[in-house]
């Protein structure tokens, strides 16, 4: 999300401007970046913040872990076995599906205001009602989709 804003800021410097009236000191003509007193606009202007560094650290941690266990096999790096068993071994088809799925997942996560980590894990552990609603939606949609799409065990 914030990464998007930073990229956009490079393309169009008008997207985030300093604004003394806004609570965070930053504002944006984009309604989403401008919500909550310009909280996200501030993150775009100052990318070295908790969330962004956290994301970079996840990447570093996962890379380290994969290296320590000898890496991921060549065939697995293209697509999972269960995809190959059910939907064929065209890498292009898998990449296109993964791109579209990524689009839907992140659009959904932004709409929900959180994802598997924020709503399902952090939310449910705090007994947040929103966490239970999100988890119900994700599994009620995810389980039938997976059963229909991946009939063979793989």
């Amino acid at each position, binding site marked *: 999300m914030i990464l998007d804003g930073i990229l956009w800021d490079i393309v169009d410097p008008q997207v985030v401007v300093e604004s003394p009236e806004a609570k965070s000191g930053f504002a944006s003509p984009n309604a989403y970046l401008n919500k909550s007193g310009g909280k996200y606009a501030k993150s775009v202007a100052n990318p070295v913040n908790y969330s962004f560094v956290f994301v970079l650290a996840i990447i570093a941690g996962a890379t380290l872990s994969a290296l320590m266990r000898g890496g991921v096999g060549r065939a697995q790096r293209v697509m999972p076995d269960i995809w190959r068993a059910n939907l064929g071994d065209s890498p292009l088809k898998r990449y296109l599906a993964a791109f579209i799925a990524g689009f839907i997942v992140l659009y959904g996560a932004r709409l929900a205001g959180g994802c598997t980590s924020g709503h399902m894990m952090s939310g449910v552990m705090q*007994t947040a009602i929103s966490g239970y609603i999100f988890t119900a939606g994700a599994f009620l949609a995810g389980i039938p989709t997976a059963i229909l799409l991946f009939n063979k065990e793989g």
Partner: protein
Amino acid sequence: MTTIILAILIGGAFGIALDRVGATNPDLIIGMLRLSRLHLMKTILLAIGFASILLLGGILAGIADPGNLSVKGAHLGVLLGGILLGVGFAVAGYCPGTGLAAGATGRKDAMFFVLGGLSGAAAFMASYSWVKSTGILTKLFGGKTTLGAISGTDYPALLSSIPGEWLGIAMGLALVGIAVALPDSLRGHSRIPEAAGKEMGS
């Protein structure tokens, strides 16, 4: 500066843990959603339940600061967004965090997932005014609501007469119980997932 160091330590540990439990492997995520390989489901339930007991037990004991709780708002968009995420989760076998981590382990399909995700997040940013105008972001159940009332916080409670800390600990214990009781598989033959290091052969 302290917060940046914390971000590096906790984020790094999260990335390592996601990979070690197999959450970066879409075979295991899809296997969980099609109910044939429930190992990850058991792991996640155990993690949430254990964290819940520690967190709310810590608040009761006065060790944890309830000011650190961060409850998200409830609205129709949470349900709709959850449904969208669930569909993509099943197709790709990745969610936002695990997709990023999986891309870092060298999975190319995960890199396409991340690119699609950046586009999806950008599309949401562009359509935010319209989404808001539909009214689906209007708060439900009082917005940032928890099950029971947690002292030291301003969050409204669904069951305001029951102490939220004890309710949370009970929910945590229930989740740990479910994690232990769940079988490895509910359908098909259960395959023990290959040890992470043996993936090279596949």
